[in-house]
């Protein structure tokens, strides 16, 4: 029972992190490792800066 509850909480937490983009850097690292393992990955700070800049260069919010 407790184990199932823990698993449920874990799944929920993962969903919240994914929805909010909290796990974005980890997903970037995974993608980077899979696609270009030889090139150095961006630092957390550089990645976040780039991500913000890209996100807000287009229409992202509406009425």
């Amino acid at each position: 029972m407790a184990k199932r509850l823990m698993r449920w909480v874990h799944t929920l937490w993962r969903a919240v992190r994914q929805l909010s983009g909290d796990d974005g850097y980890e997903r970037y690292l995974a993608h980077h490792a899979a696609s270009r393992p030889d090139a150095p990955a961006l630092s957390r700070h550089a990645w976040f800066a780039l991500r913000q800049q890209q996100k807000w260069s287009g229409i992202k919010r509406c009425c």
Partner: protein
Amino acid sequence: MKTTISSLLLWLGVALLGAAAVGGIALNRGESINALWFVTAALCVYAIAYRFYAAWIAATVLCIDATRATPAERLNNGRDFMPTNRWVVFGHHFAAIAGPGPLIGPTLAAQFGYLPGTLWILIGAVLGGCVQDMVTLFFSTRRDGRSLGQMARDELGNIGGIAALVATFLIMIILIAVLGLVVVNAMKNSPWATSTVAATIPIAMLVGLYMYKLRPGRVLEGSALGVILLLLAVAGGGWIDQQAGLRELFNHPGLPLAFAIIGYGFTAAILPVWLLLAPRDYLSTFMKLGTMILLALAIVWLRPEIRMPALTQFVDGSGPIFGGKLFPFVFITIACGAISGFHSLIASGTTPKLLANERDIPMIGYGGMALESFVAIMAMIAATVLDPGVYFAINSPAGVVGKTAAEAVITISAWGFPVTVEQMNQLAQQMGEATLFARTGGAPSLAVGMASIFGSAFGEHLLALWYHFAIMFEALFILTTLDAGTRVGRFMLQDLLGNIWQPLGRTSWYPSVLFSSAVVVSAWGYFLYIGVIDPNGGVNILWPLFGISNQILAAIALCVATGILVKSGKLKYAWITALPLAWLIIITSTATWQKISSDDPRIGFLAAANSLSDKLAAGALSPDKAAVAPQLIFNQQLDAALALFFAALLWLIVIDMLRVCVRHLRGRAVPPLSEAPHYPTRLEEAWQRD
């Protein structure tokens, strides 16, 4: 066989329940009706439409292909193109499309009674808005996630592309102005609201610093910190309101607040995104989702009675909040929540780049809009559970009902909606405000409605806190839209100016950033300024303009979709987009015609300009009104020209679409379909292997 019968019975049950609820709402006269019927009707209508109409469109009209690789898979770059879990995409898409629009439109349209707005929200969404969002998402997905403007250019030709671009730019300007006006009306002479809204700016910056410098990318930690600070700011505003010296710092009439918003808009547009825009967007998204869920729960739990009649006498066009008859103005006033052209900009360009499989398109495109429509239904409930007298007292501008409280209650009571000065004073006191009269724009009456729903669910003594929480929550995402819109407007302008003089097109060249931001801010700042000094409340002018422009954008998206359907040999199914398109053409053209040619100065822009110049010439205006009259006259003429321009834009693209369709049907040359070639998806097998 067994499952078929049980599912048949289930859907038959949903259909009957939905029909009973809609019928109950529509046919009920005289007796009060419970808000739960609205929720039931809405949920049943969306469920039936999603299960049958959306599924049919997906399978038969669009022929969604689950074996086809999406742009997210083919062009995966780990950034904007990235296959993402469907629920996450749904969350992002919904957060992007649901802004303050679906909260404000229904609140204003409640002046006609609860029925017209509610029916339009339901029918408009399932036959119009949801279809628009879904087909745009599908066509953009099949075209490597191209934007609406690019699709219009590829599929119809240059005229369509330019029209889409110009319409987007203008609607942005009008949208920002009207949203700014809503915030100003909520903050004027209210130290509590003003100080709380002001506090959201340093709070957002603090969160920005936290997410960018202190703990880069820790979005959840930063947002949690921000939400706590925002709640403290709501309580802190109440404390400031009690301090004789401090409260005067935040006690301002409309005009200085409008200038503050204009100055803020300029600063926000030139600051780096990480400092203000991005963190506040996280905060407003969390606040928005949290408040919506809370409101839905409170409505279901409390089951408040609707007090507004089904129809009011204002269907004849004499409404105090905005002038104009039920047809076409209820359809113009409620754009977001029924059909919103702006969504087609999100459904093309952003969301398709995240889709892992075409199968997810109905849920995200159609389902996302259905949820936004539900938000609009909740806003309608919050506005109509108020006493109608109170609703009109809050929303009617002083120029219509009279400057003093005594005059206003006499006018409103004479309409058959009894309200007293004591009642309004007591309400204002409960909400922690000096007055609630003439707070036109929807936000304050929605806040009073929400506060009374939350208040009875979670404690009456917290009414003032709930009211200012609701104001803060709306201002938060209105300011986000304002920043984001100004920035997008700037990019578009820079793109355009780059054709004239190349350096102006460089988005990172500081002089160009300053110049183009100043142009965009002055454009919406002008309309905001005029809206604030207008004695009849600028909402009467700006909101219909916004509705018309938003729906013209929707018509452009539907033109592109209809053109693509015809060109793909699906003429017999083209009605799914052509029907809502025809309706939009009718309502926007009628509304534009009336806004230009009506003799009633509260409806016609030119009639208003003429009546004002007559009064000015006759010397019938007080000196302060005479001083601003020339500006108001010019503005009414400008609005008429703008409305005419919008309509011309619409007809231009409709005719262009018809030309392409007719040429195609006659076998002549048309721009070829720009669909990307079919590659089989490899994601499914990869996921199964894992």
